[in-house]
């Protein structure tokens, strides 16, 4: 599966390389929502990250093959004890305002991150930042934290000019000054963000003169815009539109993995889900394959781990087969031969086909004697509902998605299963708690050795699978589409379309 993802991403990239790239032109990409901000300290969404990554670069990066690669740091070294990370910086790089990139610039940026409201990805762990010389910095951590390397690749941890940091003070950055191949040009809120070529880029210079990110909220409108050629690439094509779009001349449909897992969590501290047999029964009762094939139109895959296959630490399990008889038997063993009643909360319109999937789950469970009451809420209300502490929690089951944006199992599992992360503090909203799981999660976090970490996650995932902490559903895929005249675009699993090396065959 990992290979497949790589091939998909590379294939699109390679198509551009077969011809000699042409210089110039403005490429237009349409997405659904306006970035909330372009300040690395404030951004929280994929659209914002996608724009920013063209302008402001990170120390390390995760390429389209999901390998960690150097970017502004040429190389890095995680200490044996996992308590510090040394970064060797690239020389001769300048920010768009001419300020040189060096150790001080890194320190200024990371210090700013520590004060940020949203930078929860990275900076609970970093205690101090030492400048060794002009091009070497050391991040000292409060405890061993192996995932720090992948956290540093995340586009939210992008660096801007120290001069700009000094200028804005406590205020928010509106026009990021980075080191990227493109410079920020203009942002008309609700309409578009435009970036232009940086002719002084330190790496391979971009072919395009400019890239425009157009905000188009309606799915149908994005399709029309692509078909008329008004835009060159669009995101989030509705799954049911993909087959038709494949037949349109001059349009290419790109299916690629996403890092988001969709799950249904059981209230782990409350009957009936305190009994592992009930949790397993629910897993047997639902036909995940049918959901993925019919409701999602094949745009996704049945979960065979709580994280999807491209994430570091993934260990394949056997999905619970669809077996209603087994489910009934387990429920009877647990003392629910006469059936039971539960409340199931789910969002509507947040994830692909979420409400339809919830209804399917309800129907499958009815077949094994479980009466499910479906309750849906508007998204912000839903988030607030699920952030209540144990005593106030009001659900039996709920559906949610988790994008493991760092592509490291720590971020895909720790916040969701560790006892210290119980809501409202963290994201363990189902109050999952098991000493074995806690111990393995903690150990994996402080283990620096690659293979040893992998083995720990394999044990952990196997345990979680048996324990059936969730009703394991599926991971999402994404469908983008582009004009065939747009070459060299990279469709990235982090829900980005990257135009760094793109060009227009006009």
């Amino acid at each position: 599966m990992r290979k497949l993802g790589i091939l998909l991403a590379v294939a699109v990239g390679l198509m551009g390389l077969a011809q000699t790239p042409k210089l110039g032109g403005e490429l237009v990409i349409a997405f659904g929502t306006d970035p909330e901000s372009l300040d690395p300290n404030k951004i929280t969404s994929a659209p914002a990250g996608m724009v920013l990554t063209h302008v402001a670069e990170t120390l390390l990066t995760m390429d389209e093959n999901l390998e960690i690669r150097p970017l502004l740091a040429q190389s890095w070294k995680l200490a044996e004890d996992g308590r510090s990370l040394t970064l060797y910086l690239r020389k001769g790089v300048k920010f768009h305002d001419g300020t040189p990139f060096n150790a001080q610039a890194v320190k200024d940026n990371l210090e700013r991150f520590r004060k940020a409201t949203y930078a929860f990805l990275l900076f609970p762990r970093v205690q101090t930042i030492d400048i060794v010389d002009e091009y070497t910095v050391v991040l000292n951590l409060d405890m061993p934290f192996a995932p720090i390397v992948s956290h540093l690749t995340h586009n939210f941890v992008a660096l801007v000019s120290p001069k700009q940091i000094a200028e804005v003070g406590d205020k928010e950055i509106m026009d990021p000054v980075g080191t990227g191949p493109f410079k920020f040009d203009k942002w008309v809120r609700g309409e578009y963000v435009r970036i232009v070529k940086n002719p002084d880029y330190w790496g391979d210079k971009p072919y395009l003169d400019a890239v425009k990110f157009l905000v188009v909220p309606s799915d149908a409108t994005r399709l029309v815009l692509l078909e008329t050629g008004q835009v060159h690439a669009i995101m989030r094509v509705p799954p049911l539109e993909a087959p038709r779009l494949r037949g349109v001349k001059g349009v290419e449909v790109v299916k690629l993995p996403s890092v988001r897992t969709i799950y249904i969590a059981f209230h782990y501290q409350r009957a009936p889900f305190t009994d592992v047999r009930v949790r397993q029964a629910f897993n047997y009762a639902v036909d995940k394959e049918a959901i993925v094939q019919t409701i999602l139109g094949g745009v996704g895959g049945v979960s065979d781990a709580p994280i999807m296959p491209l994430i570091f630490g993934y260990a394949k399990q056997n999905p619970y087969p669809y077996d209603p008889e087994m489910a009934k038997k387990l429920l009877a063993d647990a003392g629910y031969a006469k059936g039971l009643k539960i409340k199931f909360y789910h969002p509507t319109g947040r994830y692909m086909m979420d409400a339809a999937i919830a209804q399917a789950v309800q129907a499958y469970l009815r077949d094994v004697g479980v009466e499910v009451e479906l309750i849906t809420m508007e998204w912000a209300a839903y988030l607030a509902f699920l952030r209540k502490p144990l005593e106030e929690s009001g659900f039996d089951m709920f559906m949610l998605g988790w994008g493991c944006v760092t592509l490291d199992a720590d971020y895909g599992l720790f916040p969701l299963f560790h006892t210290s992360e119980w809501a409202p503090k963290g994201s363990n909203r189902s109050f999952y708690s098991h000493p074995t799981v806690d111990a393995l999660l903690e150990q994996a976090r402080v283990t620096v050795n690659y293979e040893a970490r992998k083995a720990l996650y394999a044990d952990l995932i196997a345990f979680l699978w048996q324990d059936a902490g969730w009703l394991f559903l599926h991971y999402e895929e994404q469908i983008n589409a582009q004009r065939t005249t747009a070459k060299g675009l990279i469709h990235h699993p982090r829900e980005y379309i990257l135009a760094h090396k793109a060009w227009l065959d006009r």
Partner: protein
Amino acid sequence: MIQYAIRRLLLAVPTLLGVSMLVFGILRMLPGDPATALAGVHATQEVVERIRAEHGLDKPIHLQYLGFMKDLFRGNLGKSIRTALPVTTEVVSRLIPTLELTAVSMVLAVLLGVIVGVISAAKPYTVFDYGSMLGALVGLSAPVFWLGLMLMLLFSLQLGWLPAAGRGDFRHLILPSVTLAASSVALIARFTRSTMLEVLRSEYIATARAKGLRESRVILRHALSNAMIPILTIIGLRFGALLSGAVLTENVFAWPGVGRLVVDSISARDYPVVQGAVLMIAVSFVFINLVVDLLYGVVNPRIRYD
């Protein structure tokens, strides 16, 4: 007349105060708050609390309201929680495209609606009359998102005459304003027709005809002027409806208007922006109503404002 205008504007103050109070209250009654909405699914409690503190959301609600009112009287609507931009900047920059769209659709609706209505009334129970009234029924009933998409498919995808969506030159305005105008054209046409029919039955029209005036003069000069008052009322009301009802059109045509801003801001529980936008829409509405009321006097000099 000027005195009347001033009195009306003063009367608007309590109205706007009421609006502000209502919006403030309703927003806070919604489950969920900006901090949880903004921080999203990945956030920790620490982040949520930091956002709350940063925006004063941890203070008691009456203090929040007092702070809001104090700023309001200084003409300060606060800052967006989501984007950190001043609310005034954000709302004005999004109100302009909406006003642009609304104004063009209104002109379109009035011209087309009145012309069709007058012709239908002048030639009642003819093919034109039945045809246009059927058309009006369709225009009134067609959902905006459907109509918009159909126009887009026809004029952009099939014929390639017009850009499908987005804001730009005048050509970008055509499809969204036609879409937005459709229901108003229909309403105004039907209303004009029925008012005109009524007026055409009155005695002074018979007199006008009897003194040998040309039919076109009878209809335009004598009948239409008198039919204009109720038509103006409808136009005023429609303007308000268009202003707030543009959100669907804005969505379909990726038009960066204030309707979309309000909807997005409600989803994000961005209190200051919703408050600011609703207030500004209310102000526009009050102003438009005033203009309509003043126009009554222009259309019919018998109306006096004292």
